[in-house]
Every structure is written in C-alpha cells, then in structure tokens.
C-alpha cells in the first residue's frame, strides 16, 4: 500500500494557535505584554479614526495561581472610541483575520490580528470566554459573551444582551481571563504605557495594577494628529497574491482602467505607457490574464518608474505633539523636535520624526536613552538590532555636539509608514534600510545641532557661575586681610568688582532669552 500524505486544511485561528510565537505570545511574560499592547493600540486606533481624544481605562487583577510565576489574571479595558457596530461584534472579536485593516493606511496593527490573538490566548490558557460591550453611540449598548471555535475559525456567542444607553456612550469594553507572568512583565508594561503616553499625548490612560496601585497618564493636549487617509496600494508594493485578489474584486473591463482604479498615483498616461512596456494590450480584460501574465505584470511593477507615493496616507505625530508628549512625561530642561519631509523605501512612503531632550526625569549615566516608536507604537524589545540604535550609537558623533556620556539625554525616533520595515514578524525592531537609515541620521543631526547650541550655553553659564562663586569667595577675604595688613580701619568695598563679574553673567542670560 502506497503511503498517502494527508493534507488537511487548517483555519486561520488554528494556524495562529499553532504558531502563536509569531504574534508575540511566546511565553506567559511576553503574552501579557503583547495582550496589553494589542488592546491599548486597538483602543487608541478606535479613537483616533474620528479624532476623539482617547480615555482608556485598563485594569489587571490577579485571579488565581502564583504571583511569582505564571498565574491567571483578569484583563479589563475600556475606551471611548467609535465603538463596533453590534452585528459585527462577534466576527470582529471571534474570527481571526476579520478586520478593517486590509486597505492601505497607517494604523498601529496591520491585520487587526492582535486583539483577537489576545482573546484567543486567554481562551486556550484559561478555557474562559470573553465579554465585549460596545456601542457606536445610539440608544443601545450590546453585551456579548463569546468564545472562538478554533477549528472552524468562527465565533460562538454564549450570550447577547442589550442595555439602554442614556448617556449616548460610544466605545468598547473588553474583559477576559488569561494566563500571565505579570511580575516579570511589570516593568515592560509600565515602560510601554509611559512611552505610549509620550507618543499619544492627547490620550489619558488610567491603569490599575494587580496590587491595586493606580497609574495615571494625563493628556497634555486635546489636539490630535490628522487621521490617516486610506490610499490605494502603490504598484511597487504589490505581490502576486494581492494582484489576484484585486482582479477578483475589480469591476473594470480593461487593463488601463484596472491600473487607474486600483493603484496609487497611476493615471491614464502612466497606465498606457506602463502596459506598452510590459507588452500587454491596454484593452485586455484583467480577469482574462493568464497566470504567467500576472507574474510578468507584478515583476514589471517593481522596475517601472512610477511616481513616488504621496504621504497623505501617513499620520505622523507632528513636531508640536511629539514635543508635548516628551514634555509631559519627562519634563526636560531642553527639547528639540524635527520632522523630515516624506520619503519612500521600495514604494512605501514613510516619515521620520525625531526629538532630543536633556534633563528633567531623564536618567544620568549609561549614555543616551533611546525611545523608539513606529506608527505611534513604542518599541521596547531588541533595541540593539534597530536601525535607530545603529544610527544613534554608531553614526552620530555626539562629542561633536558637546554631548558626554554622563549627560541626561534622551533621543526619540518615530518612523511612520504604511508598511514599517520591521526585520521580523515580532515587530520589535526596524531594519536598517538605507533610505530609512539616511532619514533617521539627517533628522538626528538637525536636533543634535540644536542640542549643541543649548549645551554650549549651559556650559557657558555654569562656567560664569563658577567664576562668580570664586570671586565672591575670595575678593572679600583679600579685602579683609589687606585691611589688617595695611593697618587700616575701614575695609574697601569689593562690590563694584563683583558687579562687573555679575554683569558678564547677566549679559549671557539675556542672550539666552532672546
């Protein structure tokens, strides 16, 4: 009897269950961190879409098991976002890969995967269900208790209730139990929340930890960044699978029309000239393309000189908000922020924003503290593999900017893109793509220049203060000893001389204010 390989189709939920490492749920420490991160990011996205200043309430409480190792914790998160239409709540939370993020625009998550992974992980570790309450603002609040049928990739609704919504609340509240090693994850979770507060200064985040301690990150502004616009994919970033899906969806009957309708910055002229070069007839029905023609088309898209993507689909924080975030969490003595003009790598637009800060709550010693952000997400792991780390530590000559390792200095790098060039699926560090690296370096040089101006002034003032201290200490002594030695009765007045030293200092202070 011949051996027969058994092929079995697995559901997306099953796939992620079997490969939970790739979504950041490697172990109970990492899992709780990823859970919090995914939930907070979904809440922020739900608010920013309609420029609602986010109010997020997060609570983690210990349910059972040890606290010095993996135990069971209950997670509760609430936001004031746009809410989820009640009819899609079950699929939105109970079906992996269902989500609003297939179009191209800058959002924190890419596939709408993380929140569901968090619930899935909670379900498989505690065999519990998740409770979701949401309203988009009208008269009803919907309450669902549900689990995910992993093999079928379908939600199983255990309970559906509605409550009246007199206050016209909109938002979502999610609660479920999950296995976690909170004690070991604690410092990363707190770092994550603080850095989120920097990169989302318009959000108020309240957190109650398992020991009942309250952490509150108040918003520093109600101004919000412009929400990202959805854009069509740029030809550079399209692969065979995406193209096939677009062909399935399209209403267009001709290739020219298809190119114009579904791709970013492609008009009639460009489409015609492009198809000519590929050698496909402009009037051909895209649904009749043979598989090898599809491959040819995709390959040609990578080499043809299309217009660079525009950055309207990006939602950078902006210099003002970045500054506000840094100021409110670290209250430094000095801040410089700078946003580069949009640029592109492999057809994906991106913008680099950087900041540098001195003093305040920034710790002294241990060199420059680096804060990394991608699409408004703080990146906390694998710092040394990140492009920003490489630029900060090996490419910028800080001594040139009067920076010494003992100074309390922090550097902030925010890269936003429709596709952040992460090196791995873990999404914790950004690849050193030459275009990205160049933008980060140029941006940092600009803020470093401003920092060096501040530092020279500071050194100057410290120097003057030292001078004045020395003169104030010794001149009166000279006066008193010389009076004694000359056998005089009245001591000469040294204040005019001291004033001339003081005057020097006041001059330099005026300079700084100007």
């Amino acid at each position, binding site marked *: 009897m011949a051996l027969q390989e058994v092929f079995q189709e697995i559901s997306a939920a099953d796939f992620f269950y079997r490969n939970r490492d790739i979504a950041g749920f490697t172990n109970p420490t990492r899992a709780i961190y990823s859970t919090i991160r995914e939930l907070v990011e979904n809440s922020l996205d739900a608010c920013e879409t309609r420029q609602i200043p986010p109010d997020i309430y997060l609570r983690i409480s210990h349910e059972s098991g040890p606290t010095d190792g993996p135990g069971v914790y209950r997670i509760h998160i609430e936001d004031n976002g746009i809410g989820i239409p009640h009819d899609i709540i079950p699929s939105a939370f109970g079906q992996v890969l269902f989500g609003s993020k297939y179009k191209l625009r800058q959002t924190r998550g890419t596939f709408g995967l993380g929140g569901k992974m968090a619930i899935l992980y909670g379900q498989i570790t505690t065999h519990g269900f998740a409770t979701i309450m949401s309203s988009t603002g009208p008269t009803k609040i919907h309450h669902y208790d549900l689990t995910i049928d992993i093999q079928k990739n379908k939600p199983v609704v255990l309970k559906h209730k509605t409550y009246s919504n007199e206050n016209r609340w909109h938002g979502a509240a999610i609660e479920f139990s999950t296995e976690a090693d909170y004690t070991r994850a604690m410092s990363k979770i707190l770092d994550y929340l603080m850095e989120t507060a920097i990169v989302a200064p318009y959000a108020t985040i309240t957190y109650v930890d398992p020991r009942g301690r309250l952490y509150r990150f108040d918003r520093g502004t109600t101004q919000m960044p412009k929400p990202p616009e959805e854009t069509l994919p740029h030809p550079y970033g399209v692969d065979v699978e995406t193209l096939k899906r677009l062909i399935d969806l399209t209403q267009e009957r001709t290739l020219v029309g298809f190119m114009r309708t579904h791709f970013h910055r492609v008009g009639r002229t460009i489409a015609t000239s492009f198809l000519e070069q590929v050698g496909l007839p402009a009037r051909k029905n895209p649904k009749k393309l043979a598989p090898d023609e599809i491959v040819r088309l995709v390959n040609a898209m990578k080499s043809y000189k299309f217009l660079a993507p525009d950055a309207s689909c990006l939602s950078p924080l902006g210099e003002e908000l970045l500054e506000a975030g840094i100021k409110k969490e670290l209250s430094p003595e000095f801040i410089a922020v700078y946003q580069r003009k949009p640029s592109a790598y492999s057809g994906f637009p991106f913008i680099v924003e950087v900041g540098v800060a001195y003093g305040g709550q920034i710790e002294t010693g241990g060199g420059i503290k680096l804060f990394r952000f991608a699409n408004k997400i703080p990146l906390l792991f694998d710092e040394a593999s990140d492009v920003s780390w490489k630029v900060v530590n090996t490419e910028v000559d800080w001594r040139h900017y009067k920076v010494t390792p003992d100074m309390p200095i922090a550097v902030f790098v925010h890269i936003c893109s429709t596709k952040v060039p992460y090196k791995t699926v873990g999404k914790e560090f950004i690849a050193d793509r030459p275009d990205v690296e160049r933008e980060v370096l140029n941006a940092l040089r600009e803020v470093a220049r401003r920092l060096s101006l501040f530092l020279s002034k500071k050194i100057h003032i410290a120097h003057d203060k030292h001078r004045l201290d020395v003169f104030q200490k010794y001149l009166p*002594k000279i006066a008193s000893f010389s009076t004694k030695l000359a*056998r005089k009765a009245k001591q000469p007045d040294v204040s005019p*001389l001291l004033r001339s030293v003081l005057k020097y200092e006041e001059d330099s202070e005026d300079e700084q204010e100007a």
Partner: protein
Amino acid sequence: MKKIVKTSKKPSRIEQKKQVVLGSLKSLGEQIYSQLSERQWPSVRMPSRSINNIRYDQKTRQYILGEQSVKRSARNIRHVRPLTQLVWTGSFVDELSREGKTSTLRDVFYSAQAYEMSFADQAESDDIITDLETIIGHSREDFNVFPEERSAIFGDLTIQYTVRGYEGKELNLASHPDGMMIGPALTNAEFAECKADKIIAIEKGGLFTRFIEERVHEKYKAILIHTAGQAPRATRSLIRRLNQELKLPCYIFCDADPWGMHIANVIISGSANAAHLRDLNTPDAKWCGVWASDIVDYKLPSDPLTDLDIKRLYELDKDPRYAGQLWKKEIQAFLKIKRKAEQEAFSRYGLAFIVDKYLPAKLKEMS
C-alpha cells in the same frame, strides 16, 4: 678677647631687619588696599622663579633672579585663590612678628583652615611662603616661620636674646656640651661677646661631638657648627652674620663625596631654590675637606662611587658655582679614583687623629 660694642641709641641689626620686614609686609597690604579702594583688581608683581630666570651672579657669587617677572592678579580666576592665600599669609606672619611668636611651615598650613581657605596640601602652602619671601625680599625665618629641621652651635660666643621674655638676657654658647640648637631665639639674638677667631662647620653630628670632646673650640679658638646634613637657612644666615659682623673666617668639613661637597658649596654660594633671597651665603667660607685627594693622601678607608654619585659629579662639573680651581680639581680626582669616604674614616688612625693632625694641616693650608 673681642667685645662687641653697642651704642644704646642705635637700634640693633636684628631690630633693624625686623622693622624692614614689617615695613615690607605693611606696604604689601597697603598696595592691595589702595588697589581695592580705587576699584581696581588687586595684583602683585614679583620676579619669576622659573628655571630660565635664575642665573649665577659673579659679583655676589650666588644665584640670583633675572629680569623676568610674573603678575598675580585677582582678575584672573586661576590667580585669585593664590593671591588671597598670599595676602592671608602676609597678615598671619605680620601678626606673628609683631607678637614675637614663631611658627613652622606646618603651622601655617593648619592655621589657614581657620579662615576657610585651607591650602590643598603642604606643598601649596610652602609655595605661597616662597612667594611671600620673593615679594618681601626676606627669608621666611625673618618673618618668624621656621622649618622643623635644627642644627647646632657650640663655642665661646656670648649672645644676647631679643625674643620676648628674654630680652637682654645673655648666654655663652659653650655652656652646654651638646651644643645649642640654632632655633628662632638664637637666630634672632645679638652677638654680645666673642672670643673665637674662626668658624668650623661640620656635616656630621658624631664629629661635632668629637670636636667638642677634643676641645677644638679651645685649641683652635673656633665656633663649631653642626650643619646636620644640608645646612638649614637659619644656620646659613648665622654663619654669614658671624663672618660679616664678627669677621670670622669659616672652614667647612664634610664627607668626601659629591653630596658632602655640595653641602659646603651651598654654604658658600647659596642654592638655586633661594635665588630670590640674599644674605644667606658666605662667599669667603672655605671648603676644607674631606677631599678626594685626601682619600689618597691619608690612605682613608673608602667605598666605590655609585652610578648616582658619578652622575651627580658630572652635574656639579657643569654648575657655575663649581667654577673654582679647587672644585674642578677635586671633581676630576673623584672621577679618577671613583672612591668616596666618610669623615669618620679618620678614626682608623685613632680618635684624636683628625683633630691633632688633619685639622691643623688643613687650617694651615687654607688660611
């Protein structure tokens, strides 16, 4: 017998010098005081003591400072502290001198701490004392700051104290067989009566005691001085006074090696470190031994010269203070025989030999 005649109207030399020093200190105070009163940054100017400003003066037969000077101004952030220390030290020693008290370098270092301007270390405080010497033009002993080291004197010289509590009291320096310490009281004493006609300076304490026991002071009418190695400034100043005021010739006996030779030379020609000071050397004093040639002539027990000894001899050979014929001849002799000997080596011929045979022969040869 030689009686030193004093007229009561004229102040003594010691008293005169004291007045000069006090006057210089006061004028330093007045200079700074008036600069401050005129709203100027106080400053002082003094001859530079840097090595390239030290030169040998043929006329005074000692090292002196050249034309270069340095200015220490309170306007300069690096100078304001040393200037303050200088003025403080001035007012401190002014008070000491007026109250007739003395102090040591160590005392000065500690006293400063009471004024919240302590010196970083002893070296810094010693430097400031040297600055003050340079500005005032007098040695620190003249403003009552004495070093710890002491040497001794013995002989038929009667001194009269000027220090507080002993004014007018007299003492014969032959009255104690161990000799008298050359301390502040003796340094500030007047010479009342002197029966000696020469000074014999001796490097080693053992030999000094031997000379007293063998009654050299009587046999040769000599004042004996124990230099205790390199002679302290107070001792050098005393030898000069005995030589200048009482016209006593001075004969110096040291070990037969480059170091002993240099002890004699510093008494005669002074040191580079004291180039800012005068009246510390005795140019007419004579180096009487022990010479390299004595090692040969008297067949003294000797040791080989070390590398360091030989290096020192070459240095001395280039030194302008060693320009004299005797110095040149003996340096060459040392380099030739490559041996050295201690003063005690004469004991080989019996304890009295050095006094009965060697000393008269040398004194005759040198006078």
